[in-house]
């Protein structure tokens, strides 16, 4: 099965090429190509799932490009975990796009770029060295930029410019870290336990990596692109930016901390403390700003900043339980925030309403969408037994284990803020009447069926895993976490 990682990366690129050539005129050709491409990619990642139980890497044979940027493909359990989540979210977003993007301009470009970003995502996680990661990282940045500016209005262009330049700057920080790593260690592969020694230069490189990957992850204070790009991008891609795009930064940080530097070196240069402080600030800052936003997608975007703070917290504590919490939160956040953005997109498509204050009574017009929104919001707040509760629970326990009780307070404050900025939307949507007029509840026909059932499916998955035994995502995440602390 060692050809699978390579196939997972190259399939979307091949379909992107087909899309660019064949998808100019006919919408059904576009839809078939996009669906097949993302579905095959998802299947390939599913077939790789058994890899989760093996230690170490499985390599695809064959190297591409010449030195010094030789890349190869491979997968270990962490890669597969990310690849499955990403390809599933892409599959959902692409099906959702059939309805969402149908009346837009440049549809061919849109689908081509969606497939390219999918391929780049797969490339980022399915390559066993920093060089490949960096290369696909840059491919992703350029293609994602073109998706952010899809609308081509002034607002989208400005948001896109911010996205592009922060991404380029982040890429240059990674370049610094990459060159330094190669210079000091003579290797840039991933190896559990790491291989970098602690000295001022390697510390500088580590912090450069933090900034580079932090930009992508939306970490405070380099999150600035995030609240601009999410509202500007088409809704399915906003869902992917939050569900997958920012997780790429986390993936990079996990690899750097555990597989390039190793926890000892990270502790020796006090990197974990800095990361912890940034994580806490990110959580509180994101939640506080989300509360102030009236623009729905912008509120969701700031919420993503806060949620990525949880993941950073889990990474920064450098113990097995915390890493498990972080990984599981990546999974649960991808579903939750994906659902919420898809809901926001459905509302905009159907009613043109972008602001929270306009959403009174919307639950009666679009009951399925708003029920999905409600499920995702409940999950997000961390009500047991749904997904985010599990991650918060383990993050809290890990904080206590490492003697940082204050972090539990941070998590609780943030959960409270989550409730404060999600529940009013839900309450107004269902319970307040619209300008004094009682709107009758109307199921069906609210939006195109593809948009409806992808949103509903994502929402059900947010809560559904709680009722399935054994809890597969929990098992996967804990296997991976333990493999890093053997």
């Amino acid at each position, binding site marked *: 099965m060692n050809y699978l990682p390579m196939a997972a990366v190259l399939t979307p690129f091949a379909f992107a090429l087909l899309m660019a050539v064949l998808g100019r005129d006919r919408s059904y050709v576009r839809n078939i190509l996009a669906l097949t491409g993302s579905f095959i990619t998802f299947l390939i990642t599913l077939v790789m799932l058994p890899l989760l139980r093996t230690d170490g890497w499985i390599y695809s044979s064959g*190297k*591409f*490009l*010449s*030195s*010094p*940027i030789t890349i190869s493909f491979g997968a270990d359990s962490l890669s597969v975990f990310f690849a499955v989540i990403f390809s599933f979210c892409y599959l959902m977003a692409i099906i959702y796009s059939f309805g969402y993007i149908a009346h837009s301009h440049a549809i061919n470009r849109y689908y081509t770029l969606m497939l390219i970003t999918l391929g780049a995502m797969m490339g980022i996680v399915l390559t066993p060295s920093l*060089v490949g990661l*960096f*290369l696909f990282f*840059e491919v992703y940045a*350029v293609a994602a930029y073109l998706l952010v*500016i899809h609308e*081509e209005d*002034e607002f989208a*262009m400005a948001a896109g*410019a911010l996205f*592009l*330049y922060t991404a*380029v*700057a982040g*890429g*240059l*920080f990674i*370049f*610094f870290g990459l*060159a*330094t790593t*190669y*210079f*000091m260690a003579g290797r840039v592969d991933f190896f559990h336990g790491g291989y970098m020694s602690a000295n001022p*230069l390697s510390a*500088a490189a580590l912090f450069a990596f933090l900034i580079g990957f932090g930009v992508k992850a939306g970490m405070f204070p380099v999150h600035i692109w995030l609240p601009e790009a999410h509202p500007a991008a088409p809704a399915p891609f906003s869902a992917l930016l939050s569900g997958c795009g920012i997780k790429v930064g986390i993936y990079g940080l996990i690899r750097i901390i555990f597989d390039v530097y190793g926890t000892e070196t990270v502790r020796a240069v006090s990197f974990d403390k800095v990361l912890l402080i940034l994580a806490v600030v990110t959580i509180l800052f994101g939640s506080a700003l989300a509360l102030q936003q009236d623009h729905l997608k912008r509120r969701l975007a700031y919420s993503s900043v806060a949620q990525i703070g949880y993941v950073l917290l889990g990474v920064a504590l450098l113990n097995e339980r915390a890493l498990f919490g972080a990984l599981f939160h990546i999974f649960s956040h991808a579903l939750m925030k994906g659902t919420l953005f898809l809901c926001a997109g459905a509302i905009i498509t159907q009613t043109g309403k972008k602001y929270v204050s306009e959403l009174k009574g919307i639950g009666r017009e679009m009951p399925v969408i708003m029920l999905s929104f409600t499920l995702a919001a409940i999950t997000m707040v961390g009500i047991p037994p749904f997904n985010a509760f599990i991650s918060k629970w383990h993050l809290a326990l890990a904080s206590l284990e490492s003697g940082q009780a204050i972090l539990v307070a941070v998590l609780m404050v943030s959960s409270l803020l989550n409730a404060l900025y999600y529940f009013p939307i839900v309450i107004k949507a269902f319970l307040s009447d619209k300008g004094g007029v009682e709107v009758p509840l109307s199921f069906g026909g609210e939006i195109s069926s593809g948009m409806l059932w992808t949103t509903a499916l994502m929402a059900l998955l947010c809560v559904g895993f709680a009722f399935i035994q054994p809890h597969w995502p929990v098992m996967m995440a804990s296997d991976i976490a333990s493999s890093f602390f053997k």
Partner: protein
Amino acid sequence: MDGLTTVLWQPAVSIIVLLTASLFIWVIGEKGEKAVTAISASAITAALLFLAPLSPYVLAGHVQVIRYSILPPFGLSFRVELLSISLALLFLFTGLVLTFYTGAYPLESGKRRFRTVFLFVLACSVGVVLAGDLLSLFLFFEAMSLSFFILVIHNREQETISATFKFLYMTIGGSVMYFIALAAVFNQAGELAWRDGGIMTAGGPYTLLAFIGFVVAFGMKAGMFPLHLWMPDAYGQAPAPAVTLSSMIMLKTGAYGILRITHHIFGIDLLRDVSWHNYVLVLAVISILYGSSCAFATRDLMRRLAYSGIAQLGYITLGITMLTPDALTGGVYHIMAHAMMKGTLLLCAGAILAKTGKRNIDDLAGIGWKMPFTMICFSIAALTAVGLPPMNIFISKWHLGLGALDAGQPLLLVVLLISSMLNAAYYLPIAIAAFFGERNHDLHEKLSWDRLPLGMSLSIVVLTVGCLAFGLGQINIPLQWARAITAGFFY
């Protein structure tokens, strides 16, 4: 190849062929555009075919000095080795591409003069890299610089003439400095030929004088701060093919000169001893930052490309003066990478200028929909310039970065990255505005022709492929050559 025993005739014959062809173009005159292109192209191809078979010989590490006892008192000499052959091949190849572009480019008048001098400059630049000693190099260097003057002044407008005189006076100043340096070297070493490890033995006032003289002469040609003053003005005024010739070929002779004197006149041991290379290194860093900042500030497309050239040549000089093998590999590779990248950008800018008459960046919004092919190539070259992997410039920056770390100067790596960021800030908006966002509707009416002539589009494609292809292949031949060249210097 039994080149060791026979005297190689190829360098001299190549240059003679090129010079004869340029004379011939003058003679047949304005009669046939196509004939002029055909003659130039066949002369350059002939020179390529003469020199290319020498590559296995030089790759094996052989060196041959060929001396002709003409031009007393020292004679004319050529040196066949990897560095000179690879640069000569690069110059000839890019010259060939440019010939087709120039053939199709709508020059208003004086085509005969332009084409003649164009080929003459190319011949001299090949002479510069093949020359076997300081005096032979001087001969070709002077001929190249002075004849390039005719290309800059081509339009003969008032502003052109003042720009050209700036270029002329600076060139003459550079020659004077070169002459002084030449005398100082001869006084100290008693010879003028290249030698591994250098011919200067001790650092003294005369040696320093020679060093300063060479740095001024070559640095001026390479647009090194503060000797770059001629460049933005000349680029703003000269026709696009002349600018491209200068950027792809002539500027590189300056960098080549600095490389030669570093390793074959002064020698790295001496330089490490006296640390003079650090002054050049500081100037290179200033050039990088200053050039990038000025490029960012200007709104004139050609001037922006000129300032960017100052920064890019700074990379090459930096690679040479860090005195570490990786950095030199990066610098040598950057000679090729920059030629491809900047060549593409300049040819595209020339096509835009010829087609729309617009040179202000703000007027170019939406041009991608009128000239899609040109602007796609421009965008690829712009992304290359930013240093995105796997394109060429990433590879040079990578080696330069490793060299900087090797030299214990991580800050130089930071300088490279800041410059990359500035590259992104001044190239990408052009590419973005060409395709997305508001469009300049005024632009769509004033087009002088519909499609680009074949010669122009073909040359743009070839150079764009040059930006992309080497990084994508399994084996990067230019990089292998750059490494081999470096290995020859750091034996």
